[in-house]
């Protein structure tokens, strides 16, 4: 099958979802009202609450939610064949992610722009709120550990990307200063920044910096993981305007340029899908497609992380309530498009099926490598860029996305530790440095605890990260469901995704539990049990909250 046709089918399906399904849920389910006074107007303060143009808000929402995860997940999931991954990304985006993201914005806007975490406490109950905090902490812990492992793997496999990836940080620092001191206008700075970044990418293959396999008794991979956490720890302590803000901005530009290049290459090269539609000969040790597919691809189909962004910053800046449809739903469509690009690169970017099988020899390994190599093959054939430059470009793109997420994730984790210091009156824990060290330490423990001394096996936790992420999405959907019941609106459009997610999450955890037990990986076994207990509690909370709401509604029919 031609990759261009699959691309058109995928993008067409998501566009249809946006124009038809999102219009339906905006009107009939959420009842978005253009005259409702949004918190951005009600509490306008020029800082947090600012009515923002919907295109600007969409740009910032989309670039905050789309990162390395919608690339890594689909790239791993293609091991079962491209069709299951494709269907889950398209159907997930249309019926799950769009609904969830727009719903999270709506729920927050209708509750004075409060975050989903604090909404859970009010709408569902105090227990659910504590559960929410635990799940957020676990998600952050896993995302930091797993992304460090992803970047370390990329640095080992593609040494040509080392100079541009670290050079990009220098570029971001310079941009931050130029903008902070208002030396040059932003469009000019953006142009210069992009030129500098692409110059670094062009230079990269000429100056590869390979890390030796062993450095003073530590494996090269493990050393990269340590360096990355050292960097992320320092970066998360810097003021946001210095590094995080310009990095995020450059990444946003990179995201659009990368998507245009990848889709352009698919159209121009028009390759055939090399990977099997359904892979009948999956490598030994590959878990079953159901339920693992639905947790391997979280971002790109549905992800709880989006709810945090939607209710954290986006809802405070929404100009009109009806914009929630464009910002939330279309933001999810943008991320679905990135996941689709990852599927096309990993399934059509190889010369032969044997090459593809050579890449996918074990579950969870080489997924990102397959994306870089497959994407580079497509770009070479479609646009004519040399393969080394193309693979450097994609490595840099993935590593920068993952790096920025690590930087933000560690910062958030540090805040959680500081908050705990406040709650339990531990003065030392309230200070930024010790809290950062605790955050870095816990992530390192996970990266090495899961992946052994060289840290290379850390990708085993990817599906576990997916389950925790889905659990977060489940909690947000629960808040949405309860709000819909109170407003006497149809809830099945949120309830069906909620039940499906919870069922798949619990099944996936049980499958992994068995796997970790038989492998004797007791560290991850314990983590799995913690997440499993949290999921079961979420399921009970959901059932009891919805029953309580229904009973209350029946008792007061006029309310």
């Amino acid at each position: 099958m031609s990759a261009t046709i699959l691309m058109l089918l995928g993008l067409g399906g998501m566009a249809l979802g946006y124009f038809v399904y999102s219009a339906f849920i905006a009107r009939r389910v959420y009842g978005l009202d253009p005259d409702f006074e949004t918190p951005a107007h009600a509490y306008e303060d020029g800082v947090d609450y600012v009515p923002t143009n919907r295109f600007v808000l969409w740009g910032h929402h989309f670039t905050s939610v789309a990162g390395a995860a919608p690339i890594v997940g689909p790239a791993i999931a293609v091991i079962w064949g491209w069709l299951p991954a494709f269907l889950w990304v398209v159907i997930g985006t249309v019926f799950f992610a769009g609904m969830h993201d727009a719903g999270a914005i709506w729920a927050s806007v209708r509750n004075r722009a409060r975050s989903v975490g604090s909404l859970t406490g009010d709408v569902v109950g105090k227990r659910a709120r504590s559960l929410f905090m635990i799940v957020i902490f676990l998600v952050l812990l896993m995302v930091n550990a797993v992304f460090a492992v992803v970047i370390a793997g990329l640095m080992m496999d593609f040494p040509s990307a080392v100079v541009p990836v670290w050079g990009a940080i220098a570029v971001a620092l310079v941009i931050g200063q130029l903008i902070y001191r208002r030396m040059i206008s932003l469009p000019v700075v953006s142009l210069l920044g992009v030129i500098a970044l692409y110059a670094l990418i062009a230079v990269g293959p000429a100056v590869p910096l390979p890390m030796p396999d062993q450095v003073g008794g530590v494996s090269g991979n493990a050393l990269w993981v340590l360096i990355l956490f050292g960097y992320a720890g320092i970066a998360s302590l810097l003021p946001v305007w210095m590094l995080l803000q310009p990095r995020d901005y450059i990444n946003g530009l990179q995201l659009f340029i990368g998507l245009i290049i990848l889709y352009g290459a698919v159209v121009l090269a028009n390759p055939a899908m090399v990977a099997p539609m359904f892979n009948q000969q999956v490598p030994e040790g590959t878990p079953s497609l159901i339920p693992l597919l639905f947790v391997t691809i979280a971002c790109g189909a549905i992800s709880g992380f989006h709810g945090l962004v939607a209710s954290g910053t986006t809802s405070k800046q929404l100009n009109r309530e009806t914009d929630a449809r464009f910002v939330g739903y279309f933001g999810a469509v943008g991320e679905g498009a990135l996941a689709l690009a990852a599927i096309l690169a990993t399934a059509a970017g190889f010369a032969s099926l044997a090459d593809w099988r050579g890449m996918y020899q074990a579950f969870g390994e080489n997924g990102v490598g397959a994306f870089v190599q497959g994407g580079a093959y497509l770009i070479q054939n479609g646009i004519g860029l040399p393969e080394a430059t193309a693979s450097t470009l994609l490595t840099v793109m993935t590593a920068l996305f993952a790096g920025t997420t690590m930087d933000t994730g560690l910062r958030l984790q540090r805040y959680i530790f500081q908050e705990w210091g406040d709650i339990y009156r531990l003065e030392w824990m309230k200070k930024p440095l010790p809290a950062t060290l605790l955050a870095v330490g816990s992530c390192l423990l996970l990266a090495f605890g899961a992946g052994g001394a060289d840290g290379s096996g850390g990708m085993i936790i990817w599906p576990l990260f997916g389950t925790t992420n889905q659990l977060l999405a489940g909690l947000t959907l629960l808040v949405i469901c309860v709000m819909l019941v109170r407003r006497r609106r149809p809830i099945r459009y949120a309830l069906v995704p909620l039940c499906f997610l919870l069922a798949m999450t619990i099944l996936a955890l049980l499958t992994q539990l068995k796997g970790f037990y038989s492998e004797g990986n007791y560290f991850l076994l314990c983590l799995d049990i913690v997440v499993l207990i949290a999921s079961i509690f979420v399921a009970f909370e959901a059932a009891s909250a919805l029953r309580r709401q229904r009973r209350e509604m029946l008792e007061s029919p006029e309310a």
Partner: protein
Amino acid sequence: MSDSRRERLRHWLAQLRHYSEEVYAAPYRGAVARARRDEDDLFMLLVFSELMGVPNPAAYYTLELQPLLLERFHDWHRRMGMERSPLDHFRCC
């Protein structure tokens, strides 16, 4: 290039600049404002340090700033965890 076209181009560039600045600033407005407040808090401490018994070599200059910062004094001492003004001879609440 005719005048009207130049005008249109200028307008378009101004729009581009406005929107790109919005995209750059929007996600971090709160964080940047908080960081600025932290810096301002330190500055307040410098300006009022002499009154609290901390020797300040630049007191001669900071004295001039005190009336200008007085408006923020109340918010500042409350934020620093002091319910009442820390200065005996100088009550604000």
